[in-house]
């Protein structure tokens, strides 16, 4: 059970305090409710580019990192399809510096041409390093538009292509900031060694004066229900052929999310999982195979991905997966099998609460979903899942007309 207190400033900023006197460190985590799903289809990769620009200085503080480092801090940020997150972990004595820095850049950026020019280039190099210059790097560039036809989950956070980032203009950058980087569109969490009363006063002092701004309302297109199987085959200069299958599933607050997550573990988490036992050990069609959920806030994707053994063709490999799914749908899972994956979930969950940073990120995330208390409730949601729930999800999600299949073939 994670204990914390929460309050909201007059400008709409939600604040969570999670003190822990056992540590000499404090994490200041600021999560903005903006991600790649909020981008225009003509200007993708923008939320992520903007994450880079947030380190480009403000009128008052031209060098953000300089102060963080002088305060003994380490900082970083990440962008997903749903959110953008910034954090600083630093010695508790310098908590005030972190709050000063984050409040300053929430108030406004310097928007210099030099920063935009350099960060465009850096993001282009990141695009190359992670997506274009790596074996299998383009998988999600291919899979997302295959699976999503309307919803903006159809592009990854890096963007659809390099040109969108290369062509980003200063006016677009400014518009993006004022549309999304408002106090009422963010959650601040302090986790670690601090006194709640004085921390509260510091938060009020630094973030309180930021004028309220109305975040841009969100109107996301709903993804139409998929009614037939989609397929794509690509040939690449890779040493191993890989089969990817992506099924549509519910969003993060869907009541069936825990059962779906546990279904993915039953299928493909660990060496006693069904996919591994049946298709790696017994058949053997794959050298390795896994199943996992994307974890998106809106209805997202449930993935199965496996590396084919030499001499196995895609048709045979995929048929093996469908046969296994069919067995699961008709025979269900046992109490013991479900207990096994719940144990794994619980251990992972508890280890993720050990460090202040992951606690702070999780609390902010559940706050964006509606209530940070949800973090403490997730354990109960998972505990309540029954074998029948898992079987129901297998029947509902793992259907031929609900899947997008990508055959990533070696040349």
């Amino acid at each position: 059970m994670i204990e914390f207190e929460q309050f909201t400033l007059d400008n709409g900023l939600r604040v969570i305090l999670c003190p822990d006197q056992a540590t000499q460190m404090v994490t200041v985590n600021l999560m903005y409710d903006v991600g790649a799903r909020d981008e225009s289809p003509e200007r993708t990769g923008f939320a992520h580019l903007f994450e880079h620009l947030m380190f480009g200085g403000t009128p008052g503080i031209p060098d953000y990192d300089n102060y963080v480092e002088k305060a003994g801090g380490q900082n970083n940020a990440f962008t997903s399809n749903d959110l953008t997150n910034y954090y600083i972990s630093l010695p508790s004595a310098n908590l005030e510096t972190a709050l000063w820095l984050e409040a300053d850049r929430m108030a406004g950026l310097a928007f210099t041409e030099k920063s935009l020019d350099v960060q465009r280039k850096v993001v282009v190099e990141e695009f190359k390093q992670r997506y274009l210059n790596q074996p299998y790097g383009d998988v999600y560039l291919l899979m997302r538009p295959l699976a999503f036809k309307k919803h903006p989950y159809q592009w990854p956070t890096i963007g659809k292509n390099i040109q969108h980032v290369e062509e980003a203009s200063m006016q677009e950058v400014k518009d993006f900031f004022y549309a999304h980087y408002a106090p009422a569109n963010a959650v601040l969490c302090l986790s670690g060694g601090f006194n709640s009363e004085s921390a509260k006063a510091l938060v009020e002092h630094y973030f309180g004066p930021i004028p309220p701004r109305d975040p841009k309302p969100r109107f996301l297109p709903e993804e139409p229900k998929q009614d037939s199987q989609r397929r794509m085959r690509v040939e690449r200069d890779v040493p191993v052929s890989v089969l990817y299958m992506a099924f549509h599933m519910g969003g993060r607050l869907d009541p069936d999310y825990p059962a779906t997550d546990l279904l993915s573990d039953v299928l493909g988490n660990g060496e006693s999982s069904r996919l591994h036992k049946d298709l790696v050990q017994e058949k053997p069609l794959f050298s390795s195979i896994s199943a996992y959920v994307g974890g998106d806030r809106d209805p997202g994707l449930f993935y199965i991905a496996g590396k084919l053994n030499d001499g196995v063709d895609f048709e045979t490999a995929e048929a093996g997966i469908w046969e296994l799914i069919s067995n699961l749908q008709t025979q269900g899972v046992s109490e013991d099998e479900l207990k096994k994956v719940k144990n794994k979930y619980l251990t992972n969950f508890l280890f993720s609460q050990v460090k202040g940073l992951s606690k702070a990120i999780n609390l902010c995330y559940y706050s964006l979903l509606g209530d940070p208390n949800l973090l403490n409730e997730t354990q109960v949601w998972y505990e309540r899942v029954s074998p029948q729930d898992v079987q129901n999800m297998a029947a509902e999600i793992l259907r031929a007309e609900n899947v997008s299949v990508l055959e990533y073939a070696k040349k």
Partner: protein
Amino acid sequence: MQAPKITDASELKLATPEIHHLKSGQRLWVLRDPGLPLVKAQFLFHHGLVDQYMPMLNSSTWSNAFAGTKRHSTEDMALKLDTMGLMMEEESEVESSGFTVNIHNDFFGEFLDLCFEVFDSANFPESELQRYRERRRQSFLINSQKASIVASRSFSKAFYGGQHPLGIQVTPEHFDMLNQDRLKKHWEEELTRAPLDVLVSGNPKEEDLDRISTWMEGRQVDFQRKPFPERNPEGSEITQDWEKAMQSALKIGLEMPGANHPDYVGLKFTVQVLGGYFGSRLMKELREEKGYTYGVHAGLVSNSKLGVMTIRTEVGKEFREESLGIIEKEIENLVAHPPLEDEILKVRRYMQGQILEAADGVMSQQELWKSAWQLGLPEGHFENFYSKLNSLDTHQVLALANKYLKGRDLTKIIIG
């Protein structure tokens, strides 16, 4: 608004582990946090990459140690381990090997039952080994298409020499050699005969700790370690052009003194100034000024024998010669000009913050104690390291840069 006053970080407070000294120099380290329902345990044998006679032998043996015993088949073992909800990783390091397990403390006793059974009768089933070899071979082929990994491999060969256990290159034949007989022999005659350190943090039960001690006391320990092999470098510059690559991976390095040397703290500091953090000189020049790379990093790593300074980055292919020139110029600057006091202050505080972060919680501190033991560092090393950072000044950094970086031939690898 006015900048808040930045203060020096408080003193480093490291929990002192309980160390149970057992026979043949073995130790059981315990770091307790009664508030955690978890246990992190590391079983680390004094047998590392420098002790194995062929590549991948230690990692393959540890990866398959829990694949079956006389009593339990591969399937039984997998089911038992998964049911405990644990996360286990093999550890294959330069001077030690073994595994780390993260587990709920309710299951730790049950895990130990299985663990002792494995040490007693692991049988490395050939059917599972066959699958393992194929996975590993595929992974090797995939990694061989990654410029950064090929650059690391080429660097190791050039720096240590192709016959050195840290420089030897994996070939297709090595995979075929990972068979049941070889792994079983290696397990029985070398790995499990080596002295052992077990490190446990979190909230283990007393009876579980007692069982580990008793088991360690009963072990037969008779593995004699050979001296750390001397390196025999094979050239200092390798460039491999990949026609289709969009980026080139650069890996540059230089031998440095090890962690026990009196200059080590100062050198670690000097390398940090060069490229060890986001605001470092290399990051400023290559990323924030030019936009040639997503990231560049310089670091100083050490084993008990020697240290190695490495610089690594991936840059747009069209920028690679210029990037290499910038790196060399920044090294020259470090040698020619003393850093400003302001930079010294920033790096000192940054490094102290890093150490505090690395010491945050018993499970993190376990990693510090592990490295202290592996490197043979004296008691109080981290406290001394932390306070010694306060005494470093701009003249010392300049002197160290001159002593260790001036006129030295760098090993330079460019791939892609």
